[in-house]
């Protein structure tokens, strides 16, 4: 929670300084937007946990929600389905991009291979681990 609070205060500030010192470029704007977005999510969790820390009952409810086996099962199923849909979508986009733009094609092709490699590595890791 401390790390989250520090992140919420410092990193967006640094991004704002960077944005205005470098000038309004696409990359500084994107960095600012991304960092602010992450800070908003972190802030949400910081507030949620700070709120929960005030009462034993709220901590217990939060703990149950976090460790609930159905929620974990849903998360696992969601992650598995999502990554396969993403992989298929990027593969399709790669195919389409091959007719229009060489740079986009190679970028998407690299992304497809990277995702496939990560899926394969994770499968190998969990086969050995479990």
């Amino acid at each position, binding site marked *: 929670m401390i790390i989250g609070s520090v992140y919420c205060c410092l990193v967006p500030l640094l991004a704002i300084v960077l944005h205005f010192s470098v000038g309004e470029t696409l990359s500084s704007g994107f960095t600012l937007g991304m960092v602010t977005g992450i800070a908003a999510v972190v802030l949400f969790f910081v507030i949620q946990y700070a709120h929960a820390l005030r009462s034993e009952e709220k901590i*217990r409810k939060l703990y*149950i*929600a976090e*460790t*609930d*086996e*159905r*929620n974990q*099962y849903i998360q696992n199923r969601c992650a598995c389905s999502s990554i396969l849909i993403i992989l298929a979508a990027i593969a399709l986009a790669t195919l389409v991009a091959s007719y229009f733009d060489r740079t986009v094609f190679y970028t998407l092709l690299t992304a497809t291979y990277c995702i496939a490699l990560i899926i394969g590595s994770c499968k190998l890791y969990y086969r050995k681990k479990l």
Partner: protein
Amino acid sequence: MKSKIAQLRKQRRISQEELANAVGVTRQTITSLEVEKYTASLILAYKIAKYFGMTIEEVFDFSEMEDSNGKL
């Protein structure tokens, strides 16, 4: 998987929330178990059975997994 959770709960006048808190899951998990949308893990099945003072086989119905000779 069929279970007697709803029946046992009603007999003992226990709410889903109370059972969920006792076994450390959310109320939605108990609902899913009762409507047979979700199958409990071995640990959860054990906790629920223990809560009702019964065995896992008494709470959960494994007959669907057995053939006509009673084999799995």
